């Protein structure tokens, strides 16, 4: 680079222009991504009489946390509910996904690739396509209107993506590790439990965070299979 600079001094200002352009673009997109977040934060800190669409860009005159207190009072119980739903569902989905990923990457059998592809398809289906039978089934299982029903649904439909995450993670684990355990007399499950599970922490973190956010942000299942508003959908 230095040799080029001495040979062609004209490159210096050109580089400056490029850099300035780059950083202007970076800052422009910073604003693009942060504007809605700014609006939410600023509005949340305003007292109620200052909140109006016309003054949405203005900073609040002072910091008022009354909205947060109110929100906490109203949402507190539901947040408890959310954790009671999200934590077991995310853990269970990750654990099952990890077992599936282990088998599909290290214990392949004829047809296992096809099974993997069929599992993966479950990740892409629009949930509308299974919604009617799902509501009927959850009802027949006696789980309608309760959190266990929602846990069941989230674990099942979380399985495909969890299987994918863990399978791809285990593909990078050397086969020799498994073979060594087998030579020492471990079976398929013992090898998983003693060798693979302890080294799966990074994949578990990725998987659980993914499941956690997608269940937390879920809307469709939570309205169709409401946890609290019993009788909102009087289906047969």
């Amino acid at each position, binding site marked *: 680079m230095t040799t080029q600079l001495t040979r062609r001094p004209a490159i210096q200002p050109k580089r400056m222009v490029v850099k300035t352009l780059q950083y202007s673009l*970076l800052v422009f997109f910073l604003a693009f991504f942060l504007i809605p977040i700014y609006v939410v934060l600023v509005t949340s800190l305003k007292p109620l009489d200052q909140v109006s669409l016309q003054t949405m860009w203005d900073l609040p005159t002072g910091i008022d946390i009354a909205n947060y207190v109110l929100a906490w009072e109203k949402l507190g119980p539901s947040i408890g509910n959310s954790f009671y739903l999200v934590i077991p569902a995310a853990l269970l989905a990750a654990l099952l996904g990890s077992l599936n990923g282990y088998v599909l990457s290290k214990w392949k*059998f004829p047809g296992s690739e096809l099974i993997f592809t069929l599992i993966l398809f479950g990740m892409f289906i*629009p949930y*509308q396509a299974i919604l009617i039978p*799902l509501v009927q089934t959850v009802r027949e299982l006696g789980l309608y209107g309760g959190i266990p029903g929602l846990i069941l649904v989230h674990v099942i439909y979380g399985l495909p993506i969890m299987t994918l995450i863990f399978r791809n993670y285990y593909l990078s684990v050397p086969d020799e590790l498994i073979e060594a355990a087998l030579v020492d007399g471990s079976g398929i499950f013992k090898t998983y439990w003693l060798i693979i599970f302890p080294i799966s922490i990074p994949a578990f973190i990725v998987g659980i965070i993914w499941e956690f956010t997608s269940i937390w942000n879920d809307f469709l299942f939570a309205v169709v299979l409401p946890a609290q508003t019993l009788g909102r959908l009087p289906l*047969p």
Partner: protein
Amino acid sequence: MKTIKRHGASIALLLPSIVVLAIFVYGFIGVNLSISLTDEQGLNAESNFVGLDNYFALLDDPRFHIDVWNTLVFSVAFIFCSLFLGLGLAILIDQKIRAEGFFRSIYLLPMAVSFIVTGVVWRWLMNPAEGSRMSGLNLLFDTLGLDFLINQWHLTPTWGMLGIALPAIWQMSGYTMALFLAGLRSIPEEVKEAARTDGASEFVIYLRIILPMIRPVALSAIVILGHISLKVFDLIIAIAGKQLSLDVPAIYMWQTTFDAYNFARGATLATYILVSVAIFVIPYLIVTSRKERA
């Protein structure tokens, strides 16, 4: 004998997931399909086989025509813009800039927000009121002297879905950037170095070498964005509620099934959505699994 035992154990471990997914994915798709071939009306127990009548009826349904148009407008705008914005941002971030981690994290931030929250904020930002009641982005444009940018957003006739696509692009382009960035970073430095030695400019290197090499990433991104756009639902509800001009098949399905108890029509709409997603996804899954086996 040994292989049977070996395979038996692995199948046994997989079996619970296979059974559950076979029922809850494939079985339910089958049930849904069979409902769509009847005239089932929720509470009424009796239903008759009507063949493909529901499918033809929808093709003549003006509301379904609006839905198809809206989905098309939304999908094209959303996929195209997210893809180009994502690629542009990835190239920008890849220019050995300072505070790269900071910019990258902020760009990715919207992805962690739920569509419902995104929708509510953008409903404020895209408020179409005029004059002294002007607010949101229109007010910002007015203050900055960019009057020509003031518009009706999602309430623009015919093209309103572009206003819905904007928040979706805001939310997903950072994620698309992350996909592309991983692709860019996986290209060995030697390849670029070799091209530079041969006298290629940075622009030519991107156009002729880097872009062709990250084509598989673009394909994955299109499939991921595509299946999101065909299923879009909660974002629209949060921004605009249920209004006919911004209707999509997912909302129609929801209303006709759970508000009007027309299960048969709901199931038919669901099948249409499923087929549109499958056209996208199945070829992709087949290609990827073939490539991995090779």
